[in-house]
């Protein structure tokens, strides 16, 4: 809301700089976002007299004039206006002046004749929209008088952020009330004109449902002379960013910004019948609003109708069929109170937010409905030559009752604010805001009501005691007089909950392993999900869609973190990041087809999607190198990271080769299982088809772990004695048939080598020259250790013999001979 200080000064007085006023308003809750200087000024433009005026020798429509701008010498200037003539006093832009729109006046040659300056029209000076002719000054001015002396205007304009609970601040009057409270002074209401009794108007108003329109007033005015509004009114409207139109329209606008009550003026001659009806439209139809748009309205929209049909969308905008025009001479002035909800619904549906709808949907001021009309009548009489008719109509909800007073317990105010106010202080603070208070008790305790507060019609936001408490704080100030708190520290040093501790561990450990954390968007496109190639029935195929997306296209909530990872990897690799990139993210996905909440407080909660909480790690852009057993080194790394992660979190995890995900290469992926054997994640390399669909030109592997599904309780730490005796190492070279997996071999060794086996490590796999077809040579190192003493070589040999025997028997694995 823009507030002109020039305008505000009509309603209240204060003695402060604009900056200090702004600071105090901000402290009172009217956040001043900007202090603007408004200037209507034309340096270099002066009053001049047309001394002579002849036709341009080479152009019919141009005149060759000589003007005297006060220097006594005449200056030659070419003018194209039809109304230029000898003897006129005009506004003359001398060479070097700059007109609105950064239009610089220079010496010019027009059709061979030199011209030194310009005689200005209203449009050229930005004074009005009249571009057809030059301004003809009335009266006799000293030549050379700056145009600023005649038409210039300076103002300071505050741009105030108005919160939706305070529609009263959407007017100069409302802000004046706050200024009065701040400076301990009073508001001066503007002059009004009350219509007399009897004859002339004759219109009736019918209201179909008082719930839709609790109050409607109609006033009549005749003999209206449409013309420009007075200069000061135009200036004020311009200063707050409004464009003057004509006196009648400007007056209704002026009253809206002054008092906050929207008005509408109908051309009475263009209305049919003598009854205004406020009712629902009844049927869908298309109407032309006065902004020259054709709009569809629905049966349930509230409209104002005359004998023929709709003439206005109630509280939103008038229709073109009844609007005031140049030829208007009689008007019907509407000032009403419409249902905030109906105005809001209609305005939102039509995408038509007007100054009027903006105020009505925040609720009008009951008492202001008539006062504002009277204010407009005064201005119409003064500045549009109007004759005000009697017989005004004021239809109001017959059962309307002013809101009841609010009871205030000062004890409760002190409890919430931490203050130590007594009854008198509290009453004084509320009275500063123009609230009437009635003292009941000065005893400040418990539930004792101390004051009854009458709520004026312009403060319908005051609905309960706490609203008064806020007003007390606002006027009292948040910085002074507040007492002691209860101490902000509760129980020092709370601990993280387990899941947050896990997140913290991951976020500190993964970077130390070379992984960088990313934060990817919740929003994905259908193609992102399709790219995964999920099988029918996969929970991730069903996505929630945003009803009102930003950019038209379908916007879904992600059901997988994979598209986000791929996107980040692609963009970084394409912009030259050193390959490979290692990334991780901890994020939520949204599965409407997932498991629904079990225990709910509100039945609707069963509608909410499952929000799994996932950890994802990935490597993209690797060289594609192969490691032990031909497994890509990136996958080897990720497998290793999972194993270490299991140690980090003290949560057992195992990787079992299994084809789980359609977007991973079959035969190159693992299922991650928890201690109970449940699947809690997956690891694998992205399949080339999926990579293509997801637009990724690089090799990429990833791990996903469902942290929400994993029991994160860490294995307890309990010290166990360890052996201080030396270990005995034995390296074996085994000839392993290709049909045997390492896991099988590992299991047999661990089963048969006995309790003394401490560790088993695979350090080499070799196939090719010197190795039988269909076999590989595995280098494994066994470490034996006893808790009781030094191991004898013989003991170890016996264990080895057992193991080799079992390997040969069950897996046909033989020891290689040198």
């Amino acid at each position, binding site marked *: 809301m823009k507030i002109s200080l020039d305008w505000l000064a009509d309603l209240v007085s204060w003695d402060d700089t604009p900056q200090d006023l702004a600071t105090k308003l*901000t*402290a009172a809750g009217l956040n001043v976002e900007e202090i603007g200087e408004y200037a209507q000024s034309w340096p270099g433009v002066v009053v001049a007299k047309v001394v002579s005026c002849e036709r341009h020798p080479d152009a019919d429509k141009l005149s060759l004039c000589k003007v005297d701008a006060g220097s006594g010498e005449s200056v030659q200037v070419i003018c194209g206006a039809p109304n230029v003539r000898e003897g006129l006093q005009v506004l003359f832009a001398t060479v070097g002046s700059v007109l609105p729109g950064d239009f610089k006046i220079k010496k010019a040659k027009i059709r061979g004749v030199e011209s030194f300056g310009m005689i200005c029209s209203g449009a050229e000076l930005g004074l009005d929209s009249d571009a057809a002719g030059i301004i003809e000054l009335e009266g006799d001015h000293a030549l050379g008088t700056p145009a600023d002396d005649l038409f210039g205007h300076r103002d300071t304009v505050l741009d105030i952020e108005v*919160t*939706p*609970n*305070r529609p009263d601040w959407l007017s100069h009057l409302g802000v004046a009330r706050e200024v009065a409270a701040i400076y301990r002074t009073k508001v001066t209401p503007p002059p009004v004109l009350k219509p007399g009794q009897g004859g002339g108007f004759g219109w009736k108003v019918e209201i179909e449902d008082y719930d839709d329109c609790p109050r409607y007033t109609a006033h009549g005015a005749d003999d209206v002379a449409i013309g420009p509004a007075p200069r000061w009114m135009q200036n004020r409207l311009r200063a707050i960013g409004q464009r003057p139109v004509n006196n009648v329209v400007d007056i209704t606008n002026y009253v809206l910004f002054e008092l906050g009550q929207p008005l509408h003026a109908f051309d009475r001659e263009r209305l049919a019948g003598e009854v205004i009806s406020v009712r629902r439209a009844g049927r869908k139809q298309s109407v032309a609003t006065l902004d020259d748009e054709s709009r569809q309205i629905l049966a349930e929209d509230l409209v104002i109708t005359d004998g023929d049909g709709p003439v206005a969308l109630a509280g939103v905008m008038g229709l073109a069929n009844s609007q005031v025009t140049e030829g208007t001479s009689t008007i019907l002035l509407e000032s009403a109170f419409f249902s*905030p*909800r109906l105005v*809001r619904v209609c305005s939102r549906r039509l995408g038509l937010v007007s100054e009027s709808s903006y105020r009505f949907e925040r609720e009008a001021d009951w008492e202001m409905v008539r006062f504002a009309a009277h204010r407009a009548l005064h201005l119409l009489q003064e500045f549009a030559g109007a004759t005000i008719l009697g017989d005004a109509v004021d239809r109001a909800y017959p059962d309307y009752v002013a809101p009841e007073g609010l009871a205030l317990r000062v004890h409760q105010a002190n409890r*919430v604010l*931490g203050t130590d106010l007594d009854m008198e202080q509290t009453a004084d603070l509320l009275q500063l805001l123009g609230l009437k208070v009635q003292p009941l008790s000065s005893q400040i305790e418990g*539930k004792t009501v101390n004051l009854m507060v009458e709520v004026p019609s312009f403060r319908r936001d005051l609905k*309960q005691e706490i609203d008064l*408490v806020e007003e007390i*704080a*606002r006027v009292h100030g*948040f910085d002074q007089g*507040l*007492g002691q*708190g*209860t101490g*902000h*520290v*509760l129980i*020092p*040093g*709370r*601990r*993280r*909950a387990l899941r*947050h501790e896990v997140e*913290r561990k991951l*976020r500190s450990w*993964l*970077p*130390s*392993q*070379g992984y*960088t*954390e990313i*934060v*990817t968007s*919740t*929003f994905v496109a259908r193609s992102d999900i399709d790219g995964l190639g999920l099988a029918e029935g996969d929970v991730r195929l069903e996505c*929630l869609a*945003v*009803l*009102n997306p930003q950019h038209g296209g379908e916007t879904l*909530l992600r059901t997988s973190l994979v598209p986000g990872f791929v996107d980040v990897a692609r963009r*970084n690799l394409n*912009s030259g*990041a050193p390959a490979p*990139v290692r990334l991780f993210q901890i994020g*939520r996905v*949204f599965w409407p087809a997932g498991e629904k909440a079990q225990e709910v407080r*509100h039945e*609707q909660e069963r*509608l*909410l999607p499952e*929000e799994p909480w996932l950890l994802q790690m990935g490597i993209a852009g690797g060289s594609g190198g192969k490691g032990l057993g031909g497994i890509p080194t990136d996958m080897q790394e990720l497998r290793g990271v999972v194993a270490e992660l299991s140690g980090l979190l003290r949560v057992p995890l195992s990787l079992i080769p299994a084809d789980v995900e359609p977007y991973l290469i079959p035969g190159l992926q693992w299922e991650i299982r928890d201690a109970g054997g449940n699947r809690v994640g997956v690891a694998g390399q992205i399949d080339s088809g999926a990579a293509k669909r997801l637009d990724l030109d690089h090799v990429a592997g990833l791990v996903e772990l469902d942290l929400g599904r994993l029991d994160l309780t860490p294995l307890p730490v309990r010290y166990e004695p360890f052996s201080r005796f030396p270990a005995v190492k034995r390296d074996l070279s085994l000839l392993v048939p290709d049909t045997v997996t390492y896991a099988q071999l590992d299991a047999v060794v661990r089963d048969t080598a006995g309790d003394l086996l401490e560790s088993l490590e695979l350090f080499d796999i070799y196939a090719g020259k010197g190795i039988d077809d269909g076999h590989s040579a595995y280098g494994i190192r066994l470490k034996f250790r006893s808790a009781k003493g030094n191991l004898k070589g013989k003991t170890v040999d016996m264990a080895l013999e057992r193991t080799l025997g079992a390997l040969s028997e069950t897996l046909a694995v033989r020891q290689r001979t040198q």
Partner: protein
Amino acid sequence: MQEAIDRLRAEGLSRIAQADSPDALESVRVGLLGRKGELTGLLRGLKDVSDDQRPAAGAALNQLKLELTAALENRTGDLAGAGAGSMDLDLTLPGRAPVQLGTAHPLLSVLEEICDIFYGMGYDRGDGPEVELDYYNFTALNFPDDHPARDIQDTFFLNEDMLLRTQTSPVQVRTMERVQPPLAYVFPGRVYRNENADASHSSEFYQIEGLRVDRNISLVDLRETVNAFIASFFGGERQTRFRPHFFPFTEPSVEVDMECVKCSGKGCGVCGQTGWLEIMGAGMVHPNVFKAAGYPDDAYTGFAFGMGIDRIAMLKYGIDDIRLLYENDLRFLNQFRGVL
């Protein structure tokens, strides 16, 4: 025997030290430990030692073997590092760690840092769903139906009842439904607004909500808590001011400004020349919210506050465009190495 062992130790160690190339060292090794080496010879001689002395001599020989082996290994390392025996190394050559450090995302690091401060003040941390019911996001927070107050937050709707939460505040009511006062919680998380992205707006961003409820919590407690947080996070005694504002779920409601981090109140580009930075919205929990949570009338008072984590991260690190936080460009993220 002992004499021979001592002599071999002295000679062996000296020969190892004098070997000046890997080849020379290898021949020293063979001379000492090889099949025909001197130590091997002594080991063979053990059988001639008397029964009572044999164990001691055996142990001494084993000990010597270990010493010589260690000395050989050390010398091997020296010779390899020295490059053909020269000690003339270019020690300015770069080192190489086994892995290059990655980075935690600064936005989430700031989130953790803020939580840490509140853990220290005795707060718990709670969570709520990002796909939320209209009820928890608006109705229970005292946003009237069809009221312009709902327009403050442009909402992404999923259907009539479901939306992407526009604030972390719905977790307030969810928590109070389960927990009886006294309680103190922070609720960090991702929120959504249907706004066009620019340097200071993103349609997805992070907030942290704070809530404290007890029998007699006042605005003064709020102010002390806010000041304690700001002093802890931004450091030093920093002026703050409360400006009255409007949020449907708190009353009185305020916006909290703090002295600009850059100019300390003198006025600069960061604070729009005002000397103040808006840092959070806050207020006293509205009685209607307590009612929605099922608390009896007048039983409790409490405060709530909410901050934009993105904005705080941007202030902390001088980031001038919020979109950088969501682009995940490694050239941006790498700058936060070591930040946790």
